[in-house]
């Protein structure tokens, strides 16, 4: 990650602030910064979203392509995540610098969407053994200002929510060869069932306390954090600890509980906003990167 070293004075100040439930920007421990989201902003993609929280800026593009199912899962489609920590974000990502972080993020995403409870790959199957949809989720990190995992999680969910897969009118086997007909109307699309897609919550342990949505400076003070993915139905689909520190058992369970509550709320807020945006319809102005 971008290397900013803090002096001991700054660290102590942040640490004591978190202890007093009053962070440097006036937020409480369990408070998120306000974020801004826009979906369907890239015309070349099947679904896209851009998320801005603090200085963190994430762009997600989704491409849907045809593929052959895995031999051992003949009636399932494919879903793959690629994360690119581009050097435009910080020079530290130059060359292979961002690779570790990128694998980490895509691993978390893969784990979060792995259960069928969250994402049913069977819905992506067109003809068992022959044809299925493959969804490529490409995450681009344009700027990083802390809390990458949560931001990526929200952006991915929003992008998948906006994804439109072309409708297939006929799929038959013609002499062993699959034959697929797409709908002529390009607006005739299938939406993914996003009702139980996970979002990712990071709980950053600083001192004896834990916070959500850390800024870069706060992340510098933390030795360990828990990254968990929360399904809207109250289940947890993945948990992983990051950082070089260890956590006490009691703290761990408390962190999970806090993550659960915040995760459910964040999810609800996100879905409400996406619904609101959807109401503007196709004529909505795209803001993108201007203004």
């Amino acid at each position, binding site marked *: 990650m971008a290397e900013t*070293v*803090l*002096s*001991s*004075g*700054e660290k*102590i*100040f942040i640490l*004591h*602030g978190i202890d*007093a439930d*009053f*962070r*440097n*920007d*006036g*937020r*409480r421990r*369990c*408070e*998120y*910064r*306000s*974020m*801004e*989201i*826009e979906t369907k*902003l890239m015309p070349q993609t099947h679904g896209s979203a*851009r998320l801005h929280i603090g200085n963190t800026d994430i762009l997600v593009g989704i491409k849907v392509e045809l593929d052959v199912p895995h031999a051992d899962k003949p009636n399932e489609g494919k879903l793959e995540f690629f994360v690119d920590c581009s050097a435009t974000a910080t020079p530290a990502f130059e060359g292979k610098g961002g690779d570790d972080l990128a694998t980490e993020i895509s691993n978390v995403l893969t784990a979060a969407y792995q259960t069928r409870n969250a994402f049913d790959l069977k819905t992506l199957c067109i003809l068992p053994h022959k044809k299925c949809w493959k969804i490529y989720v490409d995450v681009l990190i344009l700027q990083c200002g802390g809390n990458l995992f949560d931001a990526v999680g929200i952006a991915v969910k929003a992008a998948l929510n906006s994804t439109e897969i072309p409708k297939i009118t006929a799929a038959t086997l013609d002499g062993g060869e699959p034959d697929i007909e797409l709908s002529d109307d390009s607006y005739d699309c299938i939406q993914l069932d996003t009702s139980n897609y996970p979002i990712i919550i990071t709980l950053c342990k600083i001192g004896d306390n834990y916070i959500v949505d850390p800024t870069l400076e706060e992340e510098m003070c933390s030795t360990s954090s828990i990254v968990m993915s929360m399904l809207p139905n109250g289940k947890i689909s993945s948990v992983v600890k990051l950082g070089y520190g260890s956590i006490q058992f009691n703290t761990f369970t408390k962190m999970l509980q806090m993550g659960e*509550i*915040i995760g459910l*709320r*964040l999810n609800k*807020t*996100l879905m409400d*906003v996406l619904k*609101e*945006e959807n109401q*503007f319809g196709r004529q*909505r*102005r*795209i*803001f*993108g990167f201007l*203004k």
Partner: protein
Amino acid sequence: MEEYPPIIVRLAINRIDLNLIKNENVQPRIYTPGEEISSQPDFLRGHGTYVDDENTLRASVAGVLEKVNKLISIRPLKARYQGEIGDVIVGRITEVQQKRWKVDTNSKLDSVLLLSSVNLPGGELRRRSAEDEQTMRRYLQEGDLICAEVQSTFVDGSLSLHTRVLKYGKLSQGIMLKVSPALIKRKKTHFHNLESGASLILGNNGYIWIGANKQDSDRSEGGFTQDLSRIPQVNREVCARLRNCILILAQCNIQLTDTSVTYAYEESMKYKINELLEPEIMIDVSLLTHQRLIQQ
């Protein structure tokens, strides 16, 4: 059960432009790189310009024209900090070397702070021994923040700093912010003890320091003995409010002086500190501050 604050997610449709404040009367002529400035031969080439094969003077940076007699130069609108002797700067140690520290000061090159230009504990007239050289990391290590004055500039543009006045030295508890150096005017004093109880250093290089305790401004021992005790909540709130106010001003391109910061601070009092992160409130505070600055 703990009460959790709401999570706010906005839509891009409702995005707000923060650059509302405009000076309608003044419309400066801004040059862009490669643009022709003059084809007359009677000029002296200054910074930010070059002469092409046809003897035409062209701009090499985006900025405004400055003319002193025959010398034509372009002052860039956005640039890294260009140091001048006597500037007060806030910087962060990046490397410990032989007899010197390298300091990040937002200028083109890292600045240097020589071991001989700091006050070591034990009085001003203390001699520097070989032992001091070996324990330099004990005084200042990577990541530490200092406040210093520019002593001299080298040919290549890098700066040499010193902290041999009591008000300079290592900084203790507080918040460091980075803004564009153009927002900070050179003033008589850059150290401000605000009425609210915090100390503020507006570094010429665009680095700003909000110190948490006032007593800290006495750096008689070079600030090497640090007070790491808990800061009272009141002071902490002041620091956080100042931080948010300064960021609002910086985002709306308002010059940072002790008056503008104080005005913004006063105007922000009707809001909670964490509300100051919301765009609507940022605009309100910046407009009110701007009005008060004009009335002055």
